[in-house]
């Protein structure tokens, strides 16, 4: 424990943190899992999805954006917070078009894995069946907005890691959609399958073409380790 390090308490456990570290990354380093969807360890925090919302010293805040401070007391795993998380997940399911049994992301999907973790077997809200566009124009990457959860990981990855800013959002509320730069087709951009933005999507929206279903059922990421049991966010392309 260096001079800079200090302790916080998360669900009654002592967790070591560094100055400037967010609560979620301190917890990840300590092996304490807080549910999340928009957070990705390699990307700047966004605080979009509200899944990581915790009680921090008695007040609700996002663990992915809140910096840890000495002596902080964090409550993440209680029924109230988990119920709120179920509602968020429920909404994500019904606001998109998700059919897990045939989806190539099944077993590698963070949304699905979170639903399993929180015991959701079927959404309790009404399906919206929104119309969402597919962009198959790129030779190596397939975009199926039917499953997009608007987490902005691809936006941050493209802007901050790839230096391309290919993705953005358009519209608001239920009409909000993932937008592609130049408002044309993915094939008109400089997007490449090796971009970070092609590897961070938590769901089946941005996938590498012609690789689907190559990993047998039972051997996919979350088949082997349910979400939260190994903390790294899963990356497309290296399912092992």
């Amino acid at each position, binding site marked *: 424990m260096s001079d800079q390090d200090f302790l916080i308490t998360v669900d009654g456990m002592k967790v070591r943190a560094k100055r400037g570290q967010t609560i979620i990354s301190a917890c990840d380093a300590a092996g304490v899992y807080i549910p999340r969807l928009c957070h990705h360890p390699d990307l700047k925090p966004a605080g979009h999805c509200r899944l990581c919302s915790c009680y921090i010293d008695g007040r609700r805040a996002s663990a992915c954006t809140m910096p840890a401070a000495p002596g902080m007391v964090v409550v993440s795993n209680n029924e109230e917070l988990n119920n709120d998380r179920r509602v968020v997940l429920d909404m994500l399911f019904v606001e998109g078009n998700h059919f897990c049994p045939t989806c190539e992301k099944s077993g590698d999907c963070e949304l699905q894995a979170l639903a399993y973790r929180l015991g959701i077997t079927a959404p309790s809200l009404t399906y919206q069946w929104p119309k969402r566009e597919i962009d*198959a124009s790129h030779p190596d990457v397939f975009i199926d907005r039917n499953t997009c959860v608007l987490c902005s990981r691809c936006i941050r990855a493209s802007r901050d890691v790839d230096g391309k800013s290919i993705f953005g959002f358009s519209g608001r509320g239920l009409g909000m959609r993932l937008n592609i730069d130049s408002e044309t087709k993915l094939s008109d951009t400089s997007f490449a399958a090796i971009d970070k933005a092609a590897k961070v999507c938590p769901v089946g929206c941005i996938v590498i073409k012609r690789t689907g*279903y190559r990993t047998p059922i039972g051997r996919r990421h979350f088949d082997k380790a349910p979400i939260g049991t190994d903390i790294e966010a899963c990356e497309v392309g290296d399912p092992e």
Partner: protein
Amino acid sequence: MSEASVESKTRKIVIDPVTRVEGHGKVTIHLDDSGQVQQARFHVVEFRGFERFIQGRPYWEVPVIVQRLCGICPVSHHLAAAKAMDKIAGVDAVSPTADKLRRLMHYGQLLQSNALHIFHLASPDLLFGFGAPVEQRNIVSVLEHFPEIGKWAIFIRRFGQEVIKATGGKKIHPTSAVPGGVNQNLSIADRDALRKDIGQILSWCLLALDRLKRVVAEREAEHKEFAYFESNFLSLVRADGVMDLYDGLLRAIDADGNVIFDGVEPSSYQEQIIEEARPWSFMKFPHIRSLGRERGWYRVGPLAQINCAASVDTPIAEAERRLFMKMGEGAPIQSTLSYHYARLICLIHSAEKIQQLLFDDDLQGADLVVTGHRRGVGVSCIEAPRGTLIHHYEVDENDQVTRANLIVSTTSNNEALNRAVSSVARKYLPGNEITDGLLNHIEVAIRAYDPCLSCATHALGRMPLIVSVEDAAGRLVQQRIKQ
């Protein structure tokens, strides 16, 4: 085939099997003015929405999506789509490991599906007789009176499902076939577990065939004449004419056994087979182009699979095929109920094939997927448990499906079903009275062809029917519901 003439004031009897799924059908018997059966039609409201549903989807998704088409033959659709998508992926030959793993899965499916049909659906009719009371004609009663047969029913089916699970990860919806190959091989542990049981399974299949042969011998005349008519037959066979239920070339023969066409690549199916839409049915009527719509209809399924094959490459099934074909004295076997006999020979063939494959080391190979240059069109054929299944896809330069056309076995057998029901109705319809006898016999005739609309009734083990009689003006005269 004769359309019911519009000008004559025909009366109609409607028989409507109620199902809870997309597959839904009914039988209409048209009477002429004198109360004689003029013709019968078997209507299927087919779920064609699928072809639209996959438009725009990426081609590698199709083998998994297509399984959701049917609750009974998901494996056949999975494999047919994967074979078609091999072509799209630019692959003409998958690796030996991939080919054999898919074959093993297919024979597992043939085993479990044919067993389900033979034991759960057909055996009550065959063992107790078509006239037996309804309470007796079901699988529960079979278990009670013939516990031995009940045991075969359960274990043969379960073994087929275990083969599917070992080759595809899941018992019902396997996903291991991908464009260009497979995503797994057969593990040593699974192989050894299956090896342990296959001998017993095969011997039970043989006992089942012996039992059926006794039933046939006891009621030879009835079995021969029941719903009898002659037809052409279509099936896949290997290039040398030997039976191959997984892959091969299309062969059609006429009622005398003469070849109509042979050696036809699945990709050229449209040169030989044409689909015709008719206003009174959602179903299309495929027929052999060169023979035209009156004479070009054909039968598919186990009887066609046996009739079309020059021989079978597994010893027990080949010996049984020869015995079976003797009944025809050189010509194809035609009787409707011989579908059951043929299905049992196919069951034995599948068990023998599984046994061979379980001792083939290629199944533990590591060469799983082959890649190639993408093409725009992919067509495949497979012999599903119910007969020839054709999948045809077109894919654009973005890898999205633009068009799909599926010809399923039940569609091919549609005219045969019309004929079978007509034949039975002519014999068992006294006036316009819907008797138990009529219902039972219609049910038995339809069941021989195992049409896939029975998705839900498979689970129940019987086919509920709604029967209505309509007069010339279309008014309901009589209705009976048979659960």
